[in-house]
């Protein structure tokens, strides 16, 4: 049984897709050149005019956008239309605390939700399903995206948002949820919590899960599938392009189909910016082909992965991306939240601490642990325990307000963090997320 949300486009022949991409790109570049002064300047500097872009292959001529550009242009500099045409913002944390704010017109929301609907249908969803969304709702794209997609498919939607596992389990069991949407680590946690309460995998009505927003391994997939008695599907997206649903897994479970009628993907050499042929490992770059509010062209995701157009047994013709295999920058994803070491450094310096710190990320009971060790300055050392504990609490609060999640703070003696060759090791990630 093959199910598609939008069969015609999802299974369109390659030539058809290219035709759509050619048309959309031409229009999009014109729109951006006319409306987005920031990008127009970049194009002018490179000597590229909208007329130079006739086919999708011409995309190579366009300049890249990076997270630095987003910061520079914050908040309105990359807006692609009048603000009065926009109906929503979503947001994610940026590198130095300045957030990325993305604008959506109703058209953008519709296409985003359609992409999520495709993912839900690919995971076996129909209007008879009960979809439990326990991604966060609010500025984070996870909740709103899957919620909208679930509506489009006509599923009964449980807008749970994140946290409160007791209530999640109650709704899951009492209302017979059949599809679970959350981060993979939270899915694993729910699985364990069910087992602790004496439930067997066959006691719930779940058949599938759509899990994303953080890296996860094949081992984790198998363990979640076993503990919940489901098939677990990966979903990919980022606020800069829309949110979850930019790419999603089908029943083959070996890579995510990119919704390339809306998002054009390239793989580049992160050092030279050169476009690499299909099958090469490199940095993933996205172009929004028809978004109006926040139409990013050639946005560098910093995610390292591989694209393949090998024929897929599900019938979908859209190109597939592998799970991200790493990052070309130092961003970590902790409990679904993007964290840069530089953000932590910013807080430390602002609060008067030494920049000698170490971040340790690990996974315990399938949940990320996040510890930051910071050397006290000599004048911050106290002989009174409550002084140190007060410092730890206030630093944790400052970190939480910068990052959105609070690390466990450990204040350690001056000069106690090991330095190798004079340089401290800033991040120790023990999660082994990438093979």
């Amino acid at each position, binding site marked *: 049984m093959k199910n598609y949300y939008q069969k015609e486009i999802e299974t369109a022949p390659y030539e058809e897709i290219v035709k759509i991409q050619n048309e959309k790109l031409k229009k999009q570049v014109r729109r951006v050149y006319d409306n987005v002064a920031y990008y127009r300047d970049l194009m002018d500097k490179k000597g590229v005019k909208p007329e130079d872009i006739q086919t999708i292959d011409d995309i190579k001529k366009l300049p890249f956008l990076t997270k630095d550009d987003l910061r520079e242009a914050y908040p309105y500099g990359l807006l692609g239309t009048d603000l009065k045409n926009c109906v929503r913002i979503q947001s994610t944390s940026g590198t130095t605390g300045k957030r990325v704010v993305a604008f959506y017109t109703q058209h953008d929301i519709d296409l985003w939700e359609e992409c999520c609907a495709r993912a839900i249908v690919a995971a076996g969803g129909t209007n008879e399903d009960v979809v439990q969304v326990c991604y966060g709702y609010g500025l984070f794209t996870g909740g709103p995206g899957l919620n909208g997609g679930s509506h489009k498919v006509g599923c009964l939607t449980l807008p749970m948002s994140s946290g409160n596992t007791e209530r999640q389990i109650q709704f899951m069991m009492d209302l017979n949820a059949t599809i679970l949407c959350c981060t993979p680590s939270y899915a694993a946690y729910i699985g364990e919590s069910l087992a602790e309460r004496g439930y067997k995998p066959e006691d719930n009505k779940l058949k599938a899960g759509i899990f994303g927003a953080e890296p996860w391994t094949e081992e984790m997939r198998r363990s979640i599938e076993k503990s919940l008695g489901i098939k677990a599907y990966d979903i990919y997206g980022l606020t800069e392009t829309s949110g979850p649903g930019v790419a999603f897994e089908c029943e083959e479970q070996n890579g995510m189909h990119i919704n390339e009628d809306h998002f054009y993907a390239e793989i580049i050499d992160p050092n030279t910016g050169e476009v690499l042929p299909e099958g090469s490992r490199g940095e993933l770059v996205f172009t929004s082909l028809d978004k109006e509010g926040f139409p990013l062209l050639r946005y560098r995701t910093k995610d390292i992965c591989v694209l393949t157009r090998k024929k897929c047994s599900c019938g979908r013709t859209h190109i597939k991306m592998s799970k991200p295999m790493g990052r070309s920058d130092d961003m970590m994803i902790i409990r679904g939240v993007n964290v840069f070491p530089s953000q932590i450094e910013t807080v430390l310096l602002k609060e008067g601490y030494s920049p000698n710190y170490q971040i340790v990320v690990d996974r315990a009971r399938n949940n990320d642990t996040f510890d930051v060790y910071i050397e006290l300055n000599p004048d911050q050392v106290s*002989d009174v*325990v*409550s002084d*140190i504990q007060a410092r730890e609490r206030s630093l944790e609060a400052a970190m939480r307000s910068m990052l959105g999640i609070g690390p466990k703070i450990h204040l350690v*003696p001056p000069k106690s963090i090991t330095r190798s060759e004079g340089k401290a090791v800033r991040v120790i990630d023990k999660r082994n997320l990438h093979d």
Partner: protein
Amino acid sequence: MAITQLSVYLENKPGTLSQVINTISDAGINIRALSLADTRDFGILRLIVSDVQATRAILDDQAFATETEVIAVKMSDKAGALGNILKILEDESINIEYTYAFTSPSREQACVVFRVGDTKAAEKVLNTYGEITLNDEDLKDLL
């Protein structure tokens, strides 16, 4: 007045305490009194030693030690002696951050150490009530 305590900030993991103690004893310095406050992550070792400067110098490389002024009150080594002193502090609303005590068996004497917010003020109050507080020199005599 007041006496000088060495406060050593340590990570709470096996071996850190013994390393500090061994370094001090290897240098022939006698530890007169000791108290350790511990949390999950860190410990604060408070030491009264026979030679503060020498101890700081030898610890310099491996542990972070600071000097702290604390009040040392002489008392008789008898039941009830500490209670009397605590009553004074309570009556005068002086908050104690931490305290520890040690005895000098040869002289049938004891000494209680207090860390308070305002050392000078607290010492003055204790003296008004007739309690004898010690300085670094007195301490050498006592021990």
